[in-house]
């Protein structure tokens, strides 16, 4: 096996163009290596590549670790960051690794869907921006070409004022989501609802969004209808972590709870 440490982005891009496997925090990749599921022969280590670790309100470099995002990221993404693995995982794992792995259960991904973020992909011939729904195409499938690196997450400069993340799992700590969800809401009522672990890719519950966006102070019945719509729109499967029925139920409960948190913050 060969491991190289590129000094800058150009060297890193040349390495991936040459077929080398990117390694960031290793918290997804090394688990597969240790289980013998992957045996990368040639690895390009990105851990110390400052070129992709930039951080601003509208741009989060792929190499930024969860540890930093939990302190400095936008509210709902910071909340998600706090639930990724454990301190040791957050000290190593990056948002770029989460986005590149594109697991349906990736906790960073619903936020990207909720705020219509774009993924910046860069190769030797330049960069392109793909909106999240163009980038995520299936279970662990993305539109990234093998000669490209994820270089950043690009955010709008007017993120919604209220944004909340939560997840449901089988235990409190170090747990992969059974369902995870982000709800955002603007002053004028415009609401987005994004969910993870309930479809092959992160998804938006558009009908529920449309219904609730025109409601300024939703009644109990409206909130119940909102939860019902979310449960109806998600497309979960039964697997080793949970059942389809439970995921549908939990998606509705979670989305409603987060909406209520947004509404309480609106009132406060």
């Amino acid at each position: 096996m060969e491991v190289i440490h590129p000094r800058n982005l150009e060297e890193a891009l040349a390495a991936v163009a040459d077929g080398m496997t990117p390694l960031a925090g290793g918290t997804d990749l090394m688990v597969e290596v240790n289980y013998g599921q992957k045996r990368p022969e040639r690895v390009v280590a990105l851990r110390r590549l400052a070129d992709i670790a930039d951080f601003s309100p509208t741009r989060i470099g792929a190499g930024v670790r969860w540890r930093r995002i939990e302190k400095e990221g936008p509210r709902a993404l910071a909340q998600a960051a706090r639930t990724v693995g454990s301190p040791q995982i957050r000290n190593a794992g990056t948002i770029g690794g989460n986005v590149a792995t594109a697991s349906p259960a990736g906790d960073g991904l619903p936020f990207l869907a909720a705020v219509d973020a774009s993924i910046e992909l860069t190769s030797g011939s330049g960069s392109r921006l793909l909106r999240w729904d163009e980038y995520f195409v299936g279970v662990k499938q993305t539109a990234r070409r093998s000669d490209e690196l994820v270089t950043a997450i690009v955010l709008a400069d007017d993120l919604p004022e209220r944004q909340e993340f939560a997840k449901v799992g089988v235990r409190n700590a170090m747990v992969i989501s059974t369902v995870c969800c982000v709800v955002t809401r603007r002053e004028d009522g415009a609401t987005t609802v994004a969910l993870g672990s309930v479809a092959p890719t992160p998804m938006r519950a558009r009908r529920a969004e449309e219904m609730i966006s025109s409601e300024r102070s939703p009644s109990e019945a409206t909130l119940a209808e909102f939860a019902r719509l979310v449960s109806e729109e998600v497309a979960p499967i039964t697997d080793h972590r949970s059942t389809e029925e439970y995921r549908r139920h939990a998606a509705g409960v979670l989305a409603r709870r987060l909406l209520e948190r947004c509404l309480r913050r609106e009132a406060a």
Partner: protein
Amino acid sequence: MKISLTINGREVSADVEPRTLLVHFLREDQGLTGTHIGCETSYCGACTVLVDGKTVKSCTMFAVQADGASITTVEGLADNGQLHPVQEGFWERHGLQCGYCTPGMIMSAVGLLQEKQSPSEDEIRHAIEGNLCRCTGYHNIVRAIEYAAAKMRGEEPPPPDWEEEEVSV
């Protein structure tokens, strides 16, 4: 592949096979067997060490990725035979039974106390969420970390639970 790094304050240069995990390098090449291996899949936390001051699971890193880094293992905590306050806390408050998880647990506690001088019980439990213990039920580990936090702030540690219980009987 040649690497140079600092381990417990000592400069080390070595020639390592790129596939070697950091934890194997520490245990087998460097003889630092204080860092344990429980699962090798990033779950148990027994292999926790500090890399550039931050806790990571050393089974999740190739040794060559630590080139240029500064590593602290449990062996690097005691100062001239004087136990680190966290080690002392585990001793004084019975924060271990079999001891398998202890080095990793101690390193996670050190990582926490570097950032927070007065962590709440919740913060302590959150900080050790990546370390599994099959013996203690965690209770005495939390007390051990509270002991260390007090010591490091220069305060008298809270009395052990068992003394409190005697008083209330």
